[in-house]
């Protein structure tokens, strides 16, 4: 093999991914940015509209509402998920009976289709006939409008999403917990530290990178909330579960406002990036 072919072969070997990257990632991203300056309904030619889509975005009350809804979801979902996942991981890290069974059981919802889980919870949340309200009635309490009360619908979805995803984060925390050197705990035991003190002073600082990863993954996952409101509520009642991604989808594929949908998508991607960067700085600073 001469010197020239040595130079070319590596390029040839990576070319399948480069081709894939150019066609399915780079081109759509660049095309989306171009679209933000156009009006396009797919079937008619594109019309250049300058910054109109961006101006519309600033004044779009539905988009602001959808951002607010997503924020509500994140505020409930992320802390709830981290606390429950960490708590269960801590228990499952102990030498308890049927540990393997419980680990598998908590992970099971993660691998079940999101659509199936959503339909199942829709039945549980039923206002008139759902199991949860049946139990409340049996206990002599009133019914809760899980999905029909505008102020309850998003928290209900957040609870369901937590149930669905918590297994994944339990596994991540378990991995983190198992990397903490045992001798730290032994030293703490010799000093007479309580379980809480050990958790606060050893476990938490040692699994900080895992916490960061969980926060970032939950945040990105939370921002992309779509299937649950799409299937359960369609964004209702009164737009209280209209998530940002659902709104972007509606603009794009219900009304074929491709330019505006791309503008919303781009803005949203930048927003997620900003939030994740902020989280990174905040958590690293805290460390």
């Amino acid at each position: 093999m001469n010197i020239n072919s040595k130079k070319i072969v590596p390029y040839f070997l990576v070319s399948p991914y480069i081709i894939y990257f150019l066609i399915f990632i780079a081109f759509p991203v660049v095309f989306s940015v171009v679209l933000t300056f156009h009006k396009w309904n797919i079937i008619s030619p594109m019309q250049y509209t300058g910054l109109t889509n961006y101006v519309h975005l600033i004044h779009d009350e539905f988009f602001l509402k959808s951002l607010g809804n997503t924020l509500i979801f994140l505020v409930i979902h992320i802390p709830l998920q981290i606390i429950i996942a960490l708590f269960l991981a801590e228990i499952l890290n102990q030498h308890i009976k049927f540990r393997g069974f419980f680990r598998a059981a908590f992970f099971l919802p993660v691998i079940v289709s999101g659509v199936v889980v959503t339909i199942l919870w829709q039945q549980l949340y039923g206002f008139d006939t759902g199991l949860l309200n049946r139990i409340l009635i049996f206990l002599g309490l009133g019914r809760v409008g899980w999905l029909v009360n505008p102020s309850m619908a998003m928290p209900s979805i957040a609870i369901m999403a937590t149930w669905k995803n918590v297994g994944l984060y339990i596994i991540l925390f378990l991995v983190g917990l198992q990397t903490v050197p045992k001798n730290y705990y032994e030293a703490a035991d010799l000093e007479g530290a309580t379980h809480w003190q050990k958790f606060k002073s050893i476990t938490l600082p040692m699994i900080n990178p895992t916490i960061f990863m969980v926060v970032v993954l939950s945040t990105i996952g939370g921002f992309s909330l779509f299937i649950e409101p799409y299937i359960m509520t369609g964004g209702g009642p009164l737009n209280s579960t209209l998530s940002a991604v659902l709104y972007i989808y509606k603009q794009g594929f219900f009304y074929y406002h491709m330019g505006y949908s791309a503008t919303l998508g781009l803005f949203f991607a930048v927003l997620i990036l900003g939030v994740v960067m902020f989280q990174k700085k905040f958590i690293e600073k805290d460390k």
Partner: protein
Amino acid sequence: MIKWWVNIVFLVFFSLFQISCGSRGERNPNHLIYWSSNNTQEIEFARYIVNGWNKKNPSETVSFQPVPEGQSSEEIILAAVVGKTTPDIYSNMWQGDVEDYAHAGVLVALDTLKGFKDFIYSRCDSNVVKEVTSPDGHIYQVPWKINPIMLMYNKKIIHHLGLKNPPQTYSQFDSASEKFKDENIDKDGYVDRWFGYSEVLVTWWQRFFDFYPLYLAASGGAPLVKDYKAAFDNEYAVEVFSFLRNLYANDYFAKERLSTRQDIFLSGTIATRFTGPWEISHANKFKPKGFEFNFTHMPVPDNHKGPVYTYCDPKNIVIFKTCPNAQLAWDFIKNMIEEKNDLMFLKMTNQIPRRKNLETDSLFSDYFKDNPKMIEFARQAKYVKGTDPYPNLTEVFDIISQEYEACVIYGKKSPQKAIDDAAKQVNLLYMK
């Protein structure tokens, strides 16, 4: 050595280029491609028609396939339009989409084809022809089949409530609902059975099953949009919102989604529903022993006079401009929708062909004798409307749906205010 690698890379790129830029090439003008709907009965009907045509016309053939599978046939057609891979003939086009495609210039103006106008006036009432005529004066669609929305009711429940007939007016509907509710309040004080149900999602097309047919019924078939302006800011729309709002406010209709459960009509959870003729075969197949049902027109305001209209969910036939021989395509369509083939369509699919005098035409009488429930739909077919020939109807229905949710389901707005707000937004939409 280098040449060897360069040749391979060149070959790969050239192949990719060829694949991506591939086209159908020159089309044979004597061979057409036809896509039908992808439900089993319509596939069988399309196969029957195409086989018959190809036998009679061996030099001018048609090949057929159902619309490819996707989330919806609308999305597939859109993708085909963008990719310029549309069929020549498509027979499941929702009337409300036609205007958008006509604006985009991808449909053939059928009135420019020889024999179209004469045929269409002999098949359809002038009202129907008017309904499918675009604001530019051309006709881009052949009115083909309809599924009128009517009130389906459980006969035993209606008799049990002491009613001789199903409710026809708003006050009759309210009073029957109240009686039904009184009989079905549980010991716990909650209602577990409802007089009716309509999907509570805000999804725009859900309003085809509640607001829109009720609006057409109340108004005698008035338009929603006229001259690119909202035409529904009137007493009829307000009355419909008031009527529906009352149903939810009094727990006559369920506010929660019941559609993911087993059939709530056949299980007796609800006594009535607004639906179309497709329910007949389903209900006959799955109904419990002794269950009886029938259909009547949509409820109307108490002072209503004249015929009761409804929405008919029209699906029409179009010819795309990619067709190499539009006249031949029209000849094929004409054959497909001639009287005897309409009868075959009715028999095979239980959907109503959109032709005049259906219920009185002797050719169809045997079918209706054998399928007595379908006669209600054939009678109703004289008084149906599709959608108005304006673009952006999806957004119009979405705007109405948003106001519907706020007013009808959650009582956050008065009917008058909700209709006014919806009309303002629709006017704004068409001003853009």
